[in-house]
């Protein structure tokens, strides 16, 4: 899942200041799960912005709110057509993808990001989210016992651990586990320690073209379906 954090209230206030009619738009998928932009956050932000306006004379906005199941699909965005008719700006609490999808779908409508999209990760416990994947496009988790050194090692080393490991923690941050110690321990559990002996050549991320696109089409010639 994509994990984000809502922008500081002050910044949001500044961002919307040039606009009159603001639609606060939530996202019902990842942003709900990471508690940055689901319906509850939308309505809290709505109340807070309205209150800011009355208390500190912060412009003359009018606000509306709505939460889509997902902002990153054009079909969902179609549901916004009447909602945006009398709106000057959309304050999206979707991730960066949602914001861009809106920009693409509604060419003349300004859209503002209400959250800082942070990483791809998972819920560790209630209210705690951790990064897990860097979307490098060349997954090697088979070799590293299902633990990603690119994301979880501060230095992203492919042949760790480095000399900075101490008592299983990383020299860069004493509270952070050393990813390579984790990999070692898990390989040991899996009886695959020999993988530690291997050398992993450096990867050239620059050769991976951005932006990426994935094409998946049925091979009609073979006469079968694609899966």
């Amino acid at each position, binding site marked *: 899942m994509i994990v984000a954090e809502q922008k500081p209230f002050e910044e949001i206030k500044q961002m919307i200041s040039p606009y009159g009619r603001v639609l606060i738009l939530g996202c019902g998928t990842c942003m709900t799960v990471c*508690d940055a932009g689901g319906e*509850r956050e939308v*309505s809290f932000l709505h109340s807070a912005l309205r209150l800011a306006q009355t208390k500190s004379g912060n412009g003359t906005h009018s606000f509306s709110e709505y939460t889509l199941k997902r902002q990153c699909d054009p079909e969902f965005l179609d549901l916004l057509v009447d909602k945006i008719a009398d709106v000057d700006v959309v304050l999206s609490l979707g991730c960066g993808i949602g914001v861009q999808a809106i920009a693409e779908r509604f060419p003349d409508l300004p859209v503002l990001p209400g959250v800082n999209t942070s990483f791809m990760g998972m819920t560790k416990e209630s209210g705690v989210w951790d990064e897990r994947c860097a979307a490098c496009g060349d997954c090697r988790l088979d070799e590293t016992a299902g633990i990603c050194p690119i994301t979880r090692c501060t230095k992203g080393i492919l042949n760790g651990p480095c000399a900075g490991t101490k008592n299983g923690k990383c020299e860069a941050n004493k509270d952070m586990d050393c990813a390579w110690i984790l990999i070692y321990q898990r390989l040991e559990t899996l009886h695959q320690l020999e993988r530690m002996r291997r050398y992993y050549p450096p990867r050239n991320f620059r050769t991976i073209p951005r932006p990426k696109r994935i094409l998946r089409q049925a091979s009609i010639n073979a006469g079968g379906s694609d899966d």
Partner: protein
Amino acid sequence: MYAPVNDKAQDYPTGHEKKSPDHSLVPPCQTACPLHMDIREYVDLVAQGRIMEALQVIRTGNPFPSICAYVCTHPCEDACRRSQVDKPIAIRALKRFAVEFGGDRMVQAEAETTHQEKVAIVGSGPAGLACAYYLRRLGYQVTIFEAHSELGGMLRIGIPQYRLPREVLDTEVERLTRMGVEIRTNTRVVSLDLIFELGYRAIFITVGAHQSLRMGIEGEESPGVIDGATFLREVNLGLKPSLGKRVAVVGGGNVAIDAARTAARLGTKQVTILYRRSRAEMPASPGEVEQALEEGIEIQYLVSPTRIERGKARLTVTSVRMELGEPDARGRRQPVPIKDSEFSEEFDTLIAAVGQAPQTTSDFRVRTGKGSTIQVDPVTLTTNRAGVFAGGDAVTGPATVTEALAAGRLAASRIDDYLQHRYPLPDKAGRDRLTGDLLPETIEMVRKIGRVEPPVLPLEARAKDFVPVELVYGWEEAVNEARRCLRCGVGVEILFQDKCATCLTCLRVCPYHVPYLDAHGTIQIPADQCQACGICVAECPAKAIVLRKPFDRRHVTEELSHIIRSTAESKGKPLIVGFCCQYGLFGTGTLAGLWRGAKAGVWIVPVLCIAKVEADHILQAFEIGAEGVFVAGCGQQCARENTTDRVYQRVEKVKKVLAPIGLEPERLQAFALETTDEDPTEALDRFVEKVSSLCLASVISQEVKS
């Protein structure tokens, strides 16, 4: 698709609940009550100190709540789910508190005659009284025929006065008279034809079960032997039968216990109950047995009289000892005599209380069945004769007051159907019943709080007189007892499944481990486990969870708009809004004085546990013009566990945005009590002062600016 959320600016503060179905389940206590009273509701109202409203709920479900408050056998308590945690809620004692505190006896019922048909009721026990009450309210002309000189049936001539004071009964009877029910006492009905000839269009037979059963032993007819029902009737009618020094009571039911305790109150030195099974099988209610033992009554178990001989002055009662054999069809172990175990004892009087049966005049020409009970159609309550209905003990055999009241109420509506030529409406498919036990992990998390028993009269004061033994709760005891209720079946539900992002927040925050992920990966919140704390409602990031009762959902917004209306005129002091737990302390305890604007400028939004206060609610309070907002919970006194932490987090969250909004974060504060005897008034006063000075400062700074 999502239900669109309205523009709050337009319809605030009425909230944006479009559809509001009530999905609450019928709790086990209500299912068990023959009258299906809304127990959960009135217990909850008592917990909040809203006694008058509690009384209203009670009156809606029960024609004579004061009577039930004294003598109901409370099957509701036997079914109460709290007993899975510790002990059941003292429902009857709470009802007694509500009716006495709320002044039930002052309530006047009125009725107008809107139907010309007359209905006759034969017998004035609870079934007859209830039927008269409801028929009269439906607008019929009703006459009660009663063989005895006073109304009430077993309530008057059976149940001893120390359990049901006669003033209580008299008030209820008087209420009926005032409603215009015609009463003919000293009138034993011998023929129904005669009644029809008098112009009555329907008859309800509720003659009770007054015929004492015989023990079937030699010497039963001897002078000095009397049956229980007759004995109690005589005492209740003011006679003082002379019993002598030693009295034996045969039987193990409530009538036997009542007879024994009555005999003791008449001055008998030694009262012995002879019961042929053991204590575990005794049908009498354990509480009554306990009180009898306290009063010095002896109970001989596994003893059965076989012969009575009348001597010159006394009775010689020969008994045999019993042992328990195989269980019978109903699962009760049958007593079997032990060979050669006979023994004799001398008594002055023997009271036989081994059961009663109805005694229906054969001239009624109604079909009777097993145990001479009148046979009726269970749905329509009709007998074999057109226009003749029957109910109460006469139909069921000896049962209970509440069952008789329920039969009377049902009969009233069936007689109405009959007279209006309607088919009886089938019971409307109501809300689902709550079934199933609490799970061990839920039980473990419910805070254990001992049951508060109502006080009883001290022993010395008891045995001399017929004054009521059980006393009524004080305010605090009642509120504390009521707070123990688990509010079964009114918890939460995921009303908008399509909104649920399956984020698992609810599963993680629930202190009772209620939500779970089912085999299909859908989150479920089982209604039978939810403790209605509301934490998940306030935390679900998708706002997919709601309280099952629409009223509970609207609650906070309605209270806020009430404050807007009430404060519109009264400008002056800065407005301070407090979200206070309405249970306990802030509802009824030390801070109850804050209620409804009692402290200038301070307005309370009563919430049923502060766990239900959402971050958004706090902002809404500022938005309606509050200069300060506080959230006050019972902390350690809370009837639930783990409520405060979440609320503190929400308060912190709001505080974070207050400064950029343009309000000092000190304008928001949370209070919770750490100990029971803490008095938060002072802290609150300090807060109010702080807010006042902040207000003043902002006024000054604005004037400086302009």
